[in-house]
């Protein structure tokens, strides 16, 4: 077991760990390993990092209290930074440097975090494997022939090989939880509105949240504490002081586990038995009637919102542009050559779902489906934390899933529900099968992140599976 972010922070505060040595070792590791893993799209220069370290030291010397001074953070490349390019994994934003920082980035800088680089993702976060990036696929550090999950696969991989202490991803339908499950890391999709989306390059606004990742639940609590909170710059931000109690009961709708591959099922049931032995009540007879509507509902809404959000990339507003005799031609050429196939396909499906003649049968029907799914989850999470598989399958081989869209989308079956309902969900390690990580998901009621963190801390004490680094 390696040191946790919590213990590194203690050592930095005590002065027993030299910040430069620590951060430059991380840079060295990135140089050594990232040409294979490809977790990062861009990395800070040494000079920039040194300036940042000196700034943090000055702040410490002046008595400024900071929550994560000296901890190394990686940030998904769809979160705006004014000091590093923000590409969203797309050629259409190549070399684009936003004029401002996302609110979460400002918060991390304010609290002394060292942002070491921007991590790889499926283009505009549209994918579940991190194979759709215009900057090459990311490999799973636990088995480089397999995917790390997506779309925050770069963030998960950057943690899994030890190049940073904390990370930020974004989760639209499972995009931090699936990678967490596939890389033995931890990811929390927060309640909709609890983390500012200001500066997040949008894919599907009503579903997505910037989401913290770490190698343990206790470490995750550190970055969660930094990024949460109301932001007047985000109209969907929630000003909420809700404190959840730490009493929990777990319930298990069978549909959320039974369709998983056998090693996943058995690992999760074994873990639940251990949790029960620690005195946590578990109800095995739960039922989730509307799971069958979850995937079509989610994808219809996500496509529709994507079509709307990505209309802005017309060759005028952002730097990349193709030539054309008219605005229409220029715009079409730009979008044709600089969007990837998957993105173009999702835009097209979104336009279909919103078109006259189809809107009632697709988009409106999906928003109705969303209501019944949301209401069913809210009823369930009033009484218990819902436990489930994160993914129905083990981390797939590279190329195995992307050829068939339905197989690819099916990977999200257990994760999309939390996004449709806006509730928080935590993914964390449950075990291993043939050296491949298996994750478990816990889903709670709105604003019950603290409850999930308490349960997650208990679970990682039971399993001992925290702060794992691939290859150690």
């Amino acid at each position, binding site marked *: 077991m390696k040191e946790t972010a919590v213990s590194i922070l203690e050592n930095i505060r005590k002065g027993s760990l030299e910040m430069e040595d620590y951060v430059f070792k991380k840079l060295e590791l990135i140089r050594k390993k990232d040409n294979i893993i490809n977790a990062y799209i861009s990395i800070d220069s040494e000079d920039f990092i040194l300036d940042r370290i000196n700034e943090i030291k000055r702040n410490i010397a002046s008595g400024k209290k900071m929550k994560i001074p000296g901890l190394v953070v990686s940030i998904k490349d769809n979160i705006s930074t004014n000091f590093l390019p923000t590409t969203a994994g797309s050629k259409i934003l190549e070399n684009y440097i936003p004029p401002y920082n996302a609110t979460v980035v400002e918060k991390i800088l304010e609290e002394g975090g060292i942002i070491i680089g921007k991590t790889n993702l499926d283009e505009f976060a549209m994918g579940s494997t991190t194979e759709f990036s215009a900057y090459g696929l990311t490999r799973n550090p636990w088995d480089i022939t397999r995917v790390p999950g997506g779309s925050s696969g770069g963030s998960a991989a950057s943690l899994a090989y030890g190049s940073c202490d904390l990370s930020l991803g974004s989760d639209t339908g499972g995009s931090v939880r699936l990678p967490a499950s596939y890389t033995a890391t931890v990811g929390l999709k927060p309640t*909709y*509105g609890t983390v500012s989306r200001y500066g997040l390059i949008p894919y599907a606004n*009503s579903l997505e949240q910037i989401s913290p990742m770490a190698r343990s639940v206790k470490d995750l609590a550190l970055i969660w504490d930094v990024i949460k909170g*109301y932001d*007047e710059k985000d*109209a*969907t931000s*929630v*000003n*909420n002081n809700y404190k959840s109690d730490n009493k929990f009961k777990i319930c298990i709708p069978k549909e959320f586990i039974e369709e998983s591959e056998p090693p996943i099922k058995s690992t999760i049931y074994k873990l639940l038995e251990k949790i029960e032995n620690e005195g946590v009540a578990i109800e095995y007879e739960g039922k989730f009637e509307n799971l*069958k*509507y979850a*995937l*079509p*509902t989610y*994808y*219809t809404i996500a496509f529709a919102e994507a*079509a709307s959000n990505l*209309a802005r990339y*017309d060759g005028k507003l952002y730097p990349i542009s193709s030539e054309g005799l008219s605005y*229409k031609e220029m*715009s*079409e*050429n730009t*979008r*044709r050559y600089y*969007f990837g*196939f998957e993105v*173009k*396909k999702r*835009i*097209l*499906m*979104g*336009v*279909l*779902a919103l*078109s006259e003649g*189809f809107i*009632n*049968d*697709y988009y*409106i*029907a*999906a*928003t*109705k*489906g*969303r*209501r*019944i799914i*949301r209401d069913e989850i*809210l009823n369930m999470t009033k009484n218990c934390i819902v436990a489930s598989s994160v993914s129905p399958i083990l981390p797939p081989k590279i190329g195995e899933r992307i050829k*068939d*869209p*339905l197989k690819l*989308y099916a990977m999200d079956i257990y994760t999309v529900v939390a996004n449709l*309902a*806006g509730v928080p969900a935590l993914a964390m390690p449950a075990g291993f099968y043939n050296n491949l990580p298996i994750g478990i998901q816990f889903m709670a009621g709105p*604003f019950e992140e603290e409850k999930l963190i308490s349960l997650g801390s208990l679970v990682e004490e039971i399993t001992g599976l925290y702060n794992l680094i691939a290859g150690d």
Partner: protein
Amino acid sequence: MSKKCDKDIINELLDLSRLNFTEEELEKLCKDIDEIRSLLNQVSSLSSLNVKPLYNVWDSELNPPYSVNIEKVNIYDLIPNERVAQNKIKIPWRGE
């Protein structure tokens, strides 16, 4: 639209979305669209459901925390009265 990839509809969608594909991509696109539509068609049965659409999880029925929606903007407040009166502004359909 037929179950199979309908080129006319595809061309219309391409025009609306300001997109273009190579011939090779178009072939794959047609195959994928047919498959994806088979997934999306599963929600169509919900269109007759007697519930209100849910566009955002913080709708009034959830009893959101007290401060949500404090900053809610009435779009009509931002538009000059004469333009509204003359029906020059069409507010999108999603208002309930």
